[in-house]
């Protein structure tokens, strides 16, 4: 049963993205919210941690932090809160990596 992995902390400050990425299995998805969105900025050292994975970021959190969508790692999808709800629905459960 698929898991939506929720990461809300900067990959430079905390270990949560590392662990979440390790726990992603085929069919799972990841959503970056709050300070977690920094992981999706291309050029950053943490970008490699999510490359090749099914990752979305929350658009309002990106905008608040001044990150334009062109700066995102290739393949990352931007969603709004409604899209966040859809991700929760389309996966069988949610794991928040607090």
């Amino acid at each position, binding site marked *: 049963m698929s898991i939506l992995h*929720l990461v*809300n902390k900067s990959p430079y400050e905390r270990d949560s993205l590392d662990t979440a990425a390790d726990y992603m299995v085929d069919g799972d998805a990841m959503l970056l*919210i*709050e*300070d977690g969105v920094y992981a999706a900025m291309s050029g950053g050292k943490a970008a490699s941690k999510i490359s090749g994975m099914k990752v979305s970021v929350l658009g*309002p959190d990106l905008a608040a932090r001044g990150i334009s969508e062109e700066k995102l790692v290739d393949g990352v999808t931007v969603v*709004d*809160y*409604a899209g*966040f*709800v*859809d991700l*929760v*629905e389309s996966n069988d*459960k*949610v794991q*928040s990596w*607090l």
Partner: protein
Amino acid sequence: MKLTIQVNEGPYQHQASDSAYFFTKAALEKGHEIFRVFFYHDGVNNGTRLTTPPQDDRNVVSRWSELAAEHDLDLVICVAAAQRRGIVDDGEAERNKKDATNIAPGFRISGLGQLVEGGIQSDRLVVFGD
């Protein structure tokens, strides 16, 4: 789908309560059912009516109260966590001999079983925290 939302941090210090609020609102707008919003850990501090945020900032507490009134939401504050942090309703004031209450409209204080029940009764549990 039927959802239970857990909020682990208080207002303003962390974005957790903001994220939970906007997620809950979006789920309601999409026609999903919110079985319960459960406030745990410092999350209980979202339920105090004594806040006075700056005029140019959002009011985290009253936003929850208003959403609850509009959609008949069940906003539950964990009693054990609330006792540690000083969130008090009439019943708690009487039981623990407190001379004041501070609970905000639309919130109620109850036990941890309400969270477990949320896990059982809902299709999804979504946790927001630090």
